[in-house]
């Protein structure tokens, strides 16, 4: 804790030094360019818009000046596909010469550009969850202030087995890497605590009707779902409509019960327990500012996509502070970003492990209806959760990356 505070203090000193510097020095510095890789068209635009709102809220709050540097934000729309992400990353890096990139949204977009940002030595702060980007293929230019796919799911597995005392679980998630990794994390901790995952269902990303999958669920204590985008809305309605929700409690990953999604959900979401790395209920000063700013500017309750970008903005600010005046050296910036340690962010304290992934709190929330509105009430906080959970880092990295087949599901029925 002490070390953290000292870094922050040092950062603050640097900031005040920057402010105190003679005006002509500040005026000479070209604006610090932040490139935002987001999605503004197509099916993923929901999360993409929230990302943009998050960083805009942060920059507005800071009056577009971070640690004394004027900030220029350049927004690029990838269209939600890897090739688009690559082209837009090259637009930001080669044409606009940005100092740092925030984004992209989806794991498959991130994977398409990690080699590219390393080759072009541009720091990237992503909220995409692909595990290996901060594990076996850790990239010195990438940090992730949100969470790996499994980071919250480990906690969910723990909570489901230890606190809820569930013994048998089914999992359901989209048939893609984000889903595999989430379900794997849940399964690993749940089974290590004596539980059994007896059914794993993988509907395609595009599934008009989840009934064929839901109908297969029976004889379990709980169902863990990891849906993302607009899918959770569809899934949870079907889950409730088919009468399963009254019999089998539903657990969820962060994307499935994100606070920003609550306005799209109805009574079917009441009672769902979720694990998330951000809660709009969190009682930190910065979160209050953030939630207020989002309410004021957009009239919405923020969720993880916005919060992730707000935190990313804070990381950029802290890194500039660490570097004092030399924030234009991208390699140094990447190193500084790894060293960032923040005590007050909307998601709580944030620091990074040596692979660039966040170590931070994970909240277990229960969805309730208060004054006619849905809220995710925090019922337990797991502090300082690492991407490796309580496992030994070396052993963790010695295993294959989480996937559909790893860890193997030995208890399927």
């Amino acid at each position, binding site marked *: 804790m002490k070390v953290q505070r000292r870094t922050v203090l040092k950062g603050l000193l640097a900031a005040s030094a920057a402010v105190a510097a003679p005006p002509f020095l500040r005026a000479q510095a070209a604006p610090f360019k932040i490139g935002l890789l987001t999605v503004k068209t197509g099916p993923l635009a929901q999360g993409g818009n929230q990302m943009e709102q998050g960083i805009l809220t942060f920059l507005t709050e800071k009056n577009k000046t971070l640690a004394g540097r004027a900030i220029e934000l350049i927004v690029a729309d990838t269209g939600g596909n890897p090739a688009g992400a690559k082209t837009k990353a090259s637009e930001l890096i080669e044409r606009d010469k940005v100092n740092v990139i925030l984004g992209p949204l989806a794991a498959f977009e991130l994977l398409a550009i990690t080699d590219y940002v390393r080759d072009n030595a541009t720091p990237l702060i992503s909220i995409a969850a692909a595990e290996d980007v901060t594990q076996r293929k850790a990239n010195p230019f990438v940090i992730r202030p949100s969470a790996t796919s499994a980071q919250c799911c480990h906690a969910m597995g723990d909570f489901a087995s230890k606190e809820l005392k569930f013994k048998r679980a089914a999992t359901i998630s989209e048939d*893609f890497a984000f889903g595999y990794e989430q379900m794997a994390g849940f399964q690993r901790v749940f089974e290590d605590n004596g539980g059994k995952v007896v059914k794993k269902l993988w509907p395609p990303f595009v599934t008009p009707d989840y009934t064929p999958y839901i109908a297969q669920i029976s004889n379990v204590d709980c169902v863990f779902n990891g849906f993302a985008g607009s899918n959770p809305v569809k899934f949870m309605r079907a889950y409730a409509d088919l009468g399963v929700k009254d019999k089998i409690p539903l657990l969820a990953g962060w994307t499935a019960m994100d606070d920003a999604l609550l306005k799209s959900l109805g009574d079917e979401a009441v009672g769902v327990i979720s694990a998330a790395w951000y809660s709009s209920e969190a009682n930190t000063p910065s979160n209050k500012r953030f939630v207020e700013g989002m309410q004021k500017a957009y009239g919405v309750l923020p969720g993880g996509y916005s919060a992730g970008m707000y935190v990313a903005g804070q990381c950029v600010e802290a890194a500039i502070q660490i570097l004092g005046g030399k924030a234009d050296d991208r390699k140094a910036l990447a190193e500084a970003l790894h060293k960032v340690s923040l005590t007050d962010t909307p998601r709580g304290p944030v620091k990074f492990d040596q692979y660039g992934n966040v170590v931070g709190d994970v909240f277990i929330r229960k969805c309730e209806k208060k004054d006619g509105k849905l809220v995710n009430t925090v019922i337990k906080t797991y502090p300082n959760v690492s991407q490796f959970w309580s496992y030994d880092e070396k052993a963790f990295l010695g295993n294959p990356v989480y996937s559909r087949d790893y860890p193997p599901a030995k208890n399927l029925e």
Partner: protein
Amino acid sequence: MSARGPRFFAIGVAIAILLTLPLWIANSYYVNIASQILLWAVAALALNVLVGYGGLVSLGHAALFGAAGYTAALLLKAGHGHLVADLAAIGFTLFVSAIFAILSLRSTGIAFLMITLALGQILWGIAYRWVSLTQGDNGVNVTTRPRFFGISLATADAFYYAVLIVFALAVISMAIFVRSPFGASLRGTRDQARRMNALGYNVWLIRFLAFLFSGFWTGIAGLLFVYYNQFISPQVMALQTSAEILLMVISGGTATLLGPIAGAAIVVVMKNVASAYIERWNLVLGVIFVLIISFMPDGLIPGTARIWRSGWQTLRARAARGVRVS
């Protein structure tokens, strides 16, 4: 016949511009955009063989594009050399094209479109679901670009010239193909399939070979794509990509050499360049298509040529009148 002079001049200017492009576009980003236009133009030219000259509208070409890209990416990842990977990619694409052709050429028109669409979706589904082979939506990274005669294609400029060479070969082969007896036969099957049969042509085989020819160049474009992005994932095989290539062909003008190239330029520029300035670029792209089709139903290139000609004639007529008056 007198149109030959200006035409050669225009072609000469185009070649000069393409050859010197990286010199006066200093920024590698724009050079990369030029490479993208050329590589998509190759794909559009390939599809145009079927759509424009064969009258066979395929909505499954993204699968062929992806088949080449995946074969190359997976073989490279397995440690094979570029030559082996590329040859195998083309071979596999031809094989897939042959299967597509055998199944889809039982019909023409809308039914052909539907079969190719369904086959494309099936291949896309395989790329998505066969995770142990394709790594699903995580995609496959390609770590290196090939070297040509000792020249690395890692830089934007070098890669541009490599794509330009391939593009030029594609254009030349299309130009030869269109004029060739086989090209004439294919156009005949488009216009009067039954009569062609009665004249002694093997209509099915002509279409089959045209499909392979189209598949070959689609595969080449797929290879360029995977080397350009150094990455491939199932998204590129989705219906949207097939539709995009088809839109390039139709908006530019089917059965023309320049049309698909112009169409590719429109789509690539809108998607990648205009999107940086216009937030609702997708809407603008849609509006552009609607405008093209409203004012030039035969496509941008034939439409512009028509307007150009009639404008020229009015000008000349007006000039002639002016002379008389004075």
